[in-house]
């Protein structure tokens, strides 16, 4: 069974069409959840709107639990899934730079594309900025290369790095996420409302 395309159940020619369909739903959900609004996105850092946090963690939880149930029931093989490779320092430093970029620009790439679609000028500028960023990175690749290729740890999962049981991890992660949701509601009620 799944994943369908790597296992050859759906021919690879369908890849592009499926890509557009998946993107369509992705864009619709992001936009409808308010991710095309930079002030809503930035709200998570100031406590006046936790939509990002809620959407993000709910999605991660649903996906995690769903994938593991499908793996358990034999519909999909979790070992065949693409695991994002871990480059320790690349992830930390890259993530930190992205964090600054997120607060300064108010978007991340996916949401900026949504905002471009509905005509936000700041998002268009932001996308141009991302392209300039990619350009800078590529032109100065020799500078970033040690960081980009260094401290490679393979396509590892948390089970590989810490030897924890994935099921217990998901359980704890769920409780943690629900705790964060409750906390975020509490914080939000204390912070001065911002309207946008």
């Amino acid at each position: 069974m799944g994943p369908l395309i790597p296992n050859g159940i759906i021919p690879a020619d369908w890849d592009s069409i499926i890509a557009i369909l998946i993107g369509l739903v992705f864009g619709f959900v992001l936009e409808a959840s308010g991710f095309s609004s930079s002030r809503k996105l930035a709200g998570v850092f100031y406590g006046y709107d936790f939509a990002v946090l809620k959407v993000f963690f709910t999605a991660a939880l649903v996906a995690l639990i769903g994938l593991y149930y499908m793996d358990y029931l034999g519909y999909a093989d979790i070992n065949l899934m693409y695991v994002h490779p871990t480059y320790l320092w690349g992830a930390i430093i890259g993530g930190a730079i992205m964090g600054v970029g997120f607060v300064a620009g108010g978007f991340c790439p996916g949401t900026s594309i949504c905002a471009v679609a509905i005509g936000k000028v700041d998002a268009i500028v932001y996308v141009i900025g991302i392209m300039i960023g990619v350009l800078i990175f590529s032109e100065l690749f020799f500078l970033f290369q040690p960081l980009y290729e260094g401290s490679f740890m393979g396509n590892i999962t948390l089970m590989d790095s810490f030897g924890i049981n994935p099921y217990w991890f998901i359980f704890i992660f769920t409780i943690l996420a629900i705790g964060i949701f409750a906390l975020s509601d509490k914080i939000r009620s204390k912070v001065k409302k911002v309207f946008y």
Partner: protein
Amino acid sequence: MKIKTQTNRHIYWNPYFGGFLLGILIIFTFYITGRGLGASGAMKSSVVTIVDAVTHSHAADNAYYKQFISEDKSSMNNWLVFETLGVLIGAFISGGLSGRIGWRVQHSPKITSKRRLAFALGGGVLFGLGAQIARGCTSGAALSGMAVLSTGGFITMLAIFGTGFLVAYFFRKNWI
């Protein structure tokens, strides 16, 4: 002051509902294609294509561009590029249905549009740089990575939000 009756201009979905649908979509994507969602990849492909079109020899010399250029097929012929096209269409439909389409710059009333655009550009540059170093953005690395419990995904997620909260104070004027 009529703060009490003031509401946000747009009503969006309940975040849990959006998150639930997004989670289902991630499962579906993994089930069909065996990989996660992504967004910054398409921008990388665009940059590579543009550079390749302008100066082919330069692109072929650069160790980074070189990985994404193949002679027989354009680097725009890429899963993520198609997905991003889909995102554009999907967001346009959603925005159109709730009447959110229009040219505008969204910013805090305390700052000018110009300042907002300057910060957007700077933020974009930083994000583009960071996304290349970490090999993925919030959707590709953090969200899709977390769905399969990738260590790198969790580290990236913590780094993005951790730094975000740390530096948020310095940018507060832009948003609040």
